[in-house]
Structures are given as structure tokens and as C-alpha cells.
């Protein structure tokens, strides 16, 4: 028989500590939808997505109700669109984005990811077409998310792609200027992108994946924060153990939901992504966990070490709780989506350079950071290059999702609404890296032998 206390602790986690399943994401391969004629390809895409994901939202809601655990998002990820669209004669890929948007709306999901290209080593013609179309595609759709992988530990960094994407970020902001550059919140630039990530905006269904699959992303910064409050002042070993135990519980719940969704949708279970994904709600912040560990304000000295401990403990606890772990798995630090980060950025303690350092030890990268609207494309490209270099050398995924809000400058705040939150505009260095970016070419892959 279950213990009264255990049952009430679960209820309290859900009611007061924002415990939830952040997303059930169905990955769908669109490789079978290639067609010489893009209208026909788009019809096949729409038909396949709506057929496979027809019951996704309903199933998510059923599980939510029966188990009494909130499932915040239901999403779809698809094959990187450049691989599918490349078969068509057209050079204009926006219709593919419109088809994804229409399919996502028909299924009732929150987002669809996979308007993507993988260009770490070089471009195909299709990759270039897709990257060029990103600003218009994101401006003309609501639910489509785009990502581009510009580097990897094995291939190095494609600096021509980095330069193109610096411009694409600017153009996307301009194309959605009426919404504070909201389009940029749906564009992620990766190094070492993973193929089974269920989280947006960077989700896509990698070419090495099965026909369709269910991936689940768990969350729970509030639960970890609460657990740490009970071990105030004790050694960091105790803190790490506490985080591990909490992550284990949270992930067990994710595993249960993933298996249940997989069974009901008759779709193979892929992975559970062990992530601490914050929301702008008070009590659901990763920054506040770091502060609970003992740094006065997130971003001050000690923050990187605290984050390293947190990130590692989350993985160690979670990995034992799931039969298959993947995705990004770690703590996320999206500034606009984290109440504590917003406060720390507003107070001036958390700056872009510190965030860059933090990305060396945690999941993903410079995420949801507002920068001045007049930041040059080359500076954005240089920020992308720095972040990609961290990922490339350290054999980890890194990403950049910057928001150069048109007309906004340091001291302003941009409001994105909902889970995307709000972001104080952070300063960037005024000195230029234009000559570095203009060189183009490739940064060679790092040496990973001769480690002594």
C-alpha cells in the first residue's frame, strides 16, 4: 500500500511546485513526402502529419486527466524540411512552412518543429533555399519552429552558415517587428544538434530516427527548489544527492506518461528528455535553484559552479529512472522564460558573457535573450560562432536563440507573452567582429586525441 505522505507529497508537487510534463512530442518522418512538385509534396505532408498526429492532443488530455498530472504542451517534430523540400523543383520553400502550420493547427498542437537544415559541413542547394526562406516562413506562420545546425564536434563550424544566420535572425526580427520580433523566439541555431529533442524551438525528427516516435520532456525546477529548501546550509554533496533523488521521481513520472502515450497512440517510445525547463511563473525558476544553493543573485561569481552541480545531478538522478534518455537532458537557462533570470538580468547581475560561461556546463545555450534591435548581423553571427565553438570543443549541444527586438534598446523590455515570458534587453559589446565573420569558410573540427 502506498504511503499517505508519499501521495500527499506528489499532490503538493503538482499543486504548489509546478510539477508538470512539459511536452509530449510526436516525431514524424516526412521522407516519404518528397515530390518533384511542391504542391503535391505539401499535400502529402499535411496528410501524413494529420493522420499520424490526429489523436495526439486528445490522448495527451486523457492522460492528463486520468493521472492528474498537467501536460503543458503537445507538439510535433518532423524531418528537417530541407531534406524533403530538396526533391521539389521550386526554390521558394515558404509553402512547406505553410503546410506544416496548417497541419499543426488541424491537429491542435502547440508547436511544430522541423523547418530545419543540417549544414555543419556544407550546404546543399535546398539548405540554402531553406535558410533564405526562414524570415518569411516564420513571419507568415504561427506554430512553425525553425532550427539550423551549423557545427559539430566531428565536422567543425560552417562559418558561411553562421554569417547567413546572423542575417536571418535580424531579418526575422524585422519581418515580425509588429510583434517585438517574436519570430526570433522560433529560430534556434545549433552546434551538435540532437535528433530526438522534444523541446521547442529546436525540435526536429532526425534522419536517423524511426518512422514515428513519442518523446517526452519532463520539467520541475519548482520541485527541485523546494527539495533544496529542506537541506539549507548543508554540504554540496547533500544538495547534489537531494537533486538526484528529486530528478529520479520526476523522471519516473515522465517515463510512465511516455509509455502510456506510446501505447495509446500505437507509436514507439523514443526517449525521455530529463530537462529542468523553467517558466515565467514564480516558483518555477532555474535561477532560484542556483540562488537556493547559495549564490546571492544568479549571474554572480559561483553561478557557473552551482549550475554545473545542478545539471549533473539532474542527469544522474534521471538516467536511472527511464529506460531511454535522450534529447537535451539538463538544466535550461532561457532568460525570458525564467522569473529569476529576468530579475537577475534586470538588476544587471546577469550579463551575456556570464550566460555564455554558464552554457559551458549546462544544457543548450544562449536562450531567449533580448539584445538591442540595432545589433549588427555580424555581431549576432559572432555570438553564434562563440557558442558553436563551445559546443564543438566540449562535445556538447549548444544553441543560440537571440531576440534583437526592433526599435528596442538596453533598459527596454520585450513582452512575448505566455510561456515565452518577457525579456529585459541586454547589452552586447559594441566592438565589431565583422572582419572575422566576413572571412567565411569553416572552422576545422577540433583534435580529440592526444589528450595527455
Amino acid at each position, binding site marked *: 500500500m*502506498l*504511503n*499517505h505522505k508519499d*501521495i500527499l507529497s506528489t499532490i503538493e508537487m503538482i499543486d504548489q511546485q509546478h510539477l508538470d510534463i512539459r511536452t509530449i512530442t510526436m516525431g514524424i518522418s516526412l521522407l516519404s513526402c518528397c515530390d518533384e512538385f511542391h504542391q503535391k509534396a505539401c499535400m502529402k505532408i499535411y496528410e501524413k502529419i494529420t493522420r499520424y498526429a490526429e489523436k495526439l492532443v486528445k490522448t495527451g488530455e486523457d492522460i492528463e486527466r486520468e493521472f*492528474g498530472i498537467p501536460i503543458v504542451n503537445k507538439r510535433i517534430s518532423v524531418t528537417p524540411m530541407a531534406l524533403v523540400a530538396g526533391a521539389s523543383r521550386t526554390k521558394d520553400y515558404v509553402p512547406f512552412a505553410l503546410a506544416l502550420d496548417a497541419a499543426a493547427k488541424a491537429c491542435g498542437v502547440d508547436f511544430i518543429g522541423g523547418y530545419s537544415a543540417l549544414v555543419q559541413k556544407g550546404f546543399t542547394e535546398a539548405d540554402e533555399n531553406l535558410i533564405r526562406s526562414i524570415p518569411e516562413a516564420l513571419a507568415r506562420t504561427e506554430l512553425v519552429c525553425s532550427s539550423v545546425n551549423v557545427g559539430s564536434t566531428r565536422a567543425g563550424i560552417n562559418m558561411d552558415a553562421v554569417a547567413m544566420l546572423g542575417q536571418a535572425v535580424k531579418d526575422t526580427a524585422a519581418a515580425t517587428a509588429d510583434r517585438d520580433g517574436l519570430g526570433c523566439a522560433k529560430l534556434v541555431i545549433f552546434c551538435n544538434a540532437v535528433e530526438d529533442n522534444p523541446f521547442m524551438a529546436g525540435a526536429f525528427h532526425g534522419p536517423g530516427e524511426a518512422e514515428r516516435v513519442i518523446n517526452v520532456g519532463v520539467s520541475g525546477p519548482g520541485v527541485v527548489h523546494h527539495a533544496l529548501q529542506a537541506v539549507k546550509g548543508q554540504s554540496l554533496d547533500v544538495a547534489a544527492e537531494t537533486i538526484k533523488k528529486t530528478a529520479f*521521481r520526476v523522471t519516473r513520472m515522465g517515463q510512465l506518461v511516455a509509455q502510456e502515450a506510446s501505447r495509446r497512440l500505437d507509436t514507439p517510445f523514443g526517449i525521455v528528455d530529463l530537462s529542468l525547463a523553467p517558466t515565467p511563473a514564480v516558483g518555477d525558476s532555474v535561477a532560484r535553484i542556483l540562488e537556493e544553493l547559495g549564490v546571492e543573485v544568479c549571474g554572480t561569481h559561483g553561478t557557473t559552479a552551482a549550475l554545473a552541480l545542478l545539471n549533473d545531478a539532474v542527469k544522474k538522478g534521471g538516467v536511472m529512472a527511464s529506460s531511454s534518455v535522450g534529447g537535451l537532458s539538463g538544466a535550461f537557462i532561457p532568460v525570458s522564460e525564467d522569473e529569476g533570470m529576468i530579475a537577475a538580468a534586470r538588476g544587471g547581475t546577469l550579463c551575456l558573457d556570464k550566460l555564455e560561461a554558464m552554457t559551458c556546463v549546462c544544457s543548450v545555450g544562449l536562450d531567449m535573450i533580448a539584445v538591442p534591435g540595432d545589433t549588427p548581423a555580424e555581431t549576432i553571427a559572432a555570438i553564434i560562432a562563440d557558442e558553436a565553438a563551445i559546443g564543438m570543443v566540449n562535445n556538447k549541444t549548444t544553441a543560440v536563440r537571440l531576440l534583437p527586438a526592433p526599435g528596442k534598446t538596453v533598459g527596454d523590455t520585450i513582452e512575448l507573452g505566455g510561456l515565452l515570458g518577457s525579456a529585459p534587453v541586454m547589452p552586447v559589446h559594441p566592438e565589431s567582429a565583422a572582419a572575422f565573420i566576413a572571412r567565411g569558410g569553416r572552422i576545422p573540427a577540433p583534435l580529440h586525441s592526444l589528450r595527455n
Partner: protein
Amino acid sequence: MNAIVTVLGQDKVGIIAAVCALLAKNNVNILDISQTILQGAFTMVMAVDVGKAAVSVDGLREQLDVLGNEMDISIRIQREEIFDAMHRI
């Protein structure tokens, strides 16, 4: 199938009676029951068998919601597996 019913709220006369009556009316068997007062708040946890229930679990949930609103307490019914997953290896 087993489910867990939890009742939380301000203590008052008749909570257990009302919840048990509702469950009995729907042919839901109570397997275990534990109740306590934590800092003035009434908390009750029941394990129930809904396998032979006269209504679906969703129907039961709706009835419990109505009762909860009437008595100004929170009543929820969740499948047992969620608690097993989190607290049992």
C-alpha cells in the same frame, strides 16, 4: 483498476460520510483509507477499486468535483500508477 482519491480542505462534519456515500452509490469499493488533520487541514487518502464501478472514471471525477464544490473541499481521483512510479522502485 485501482485509483487514489485524495480529499483536502478545511475540516468539517461529514466529509468522509459524503465521499464514501458517493463512492458506494457508484459501486466503487474502498480498499484502504487513511485520514488525518494536518495543521487544521483535513487530508484523506483512499485507495479504491474502480473496476466494477457503475460509471466511468471520468463520470466519477465529475461527481466528485460537484461534491467538492458543494463542500468547499478539493477532491481528486487519479490512477494509482502515477504514485507507484514516483515512490516505488
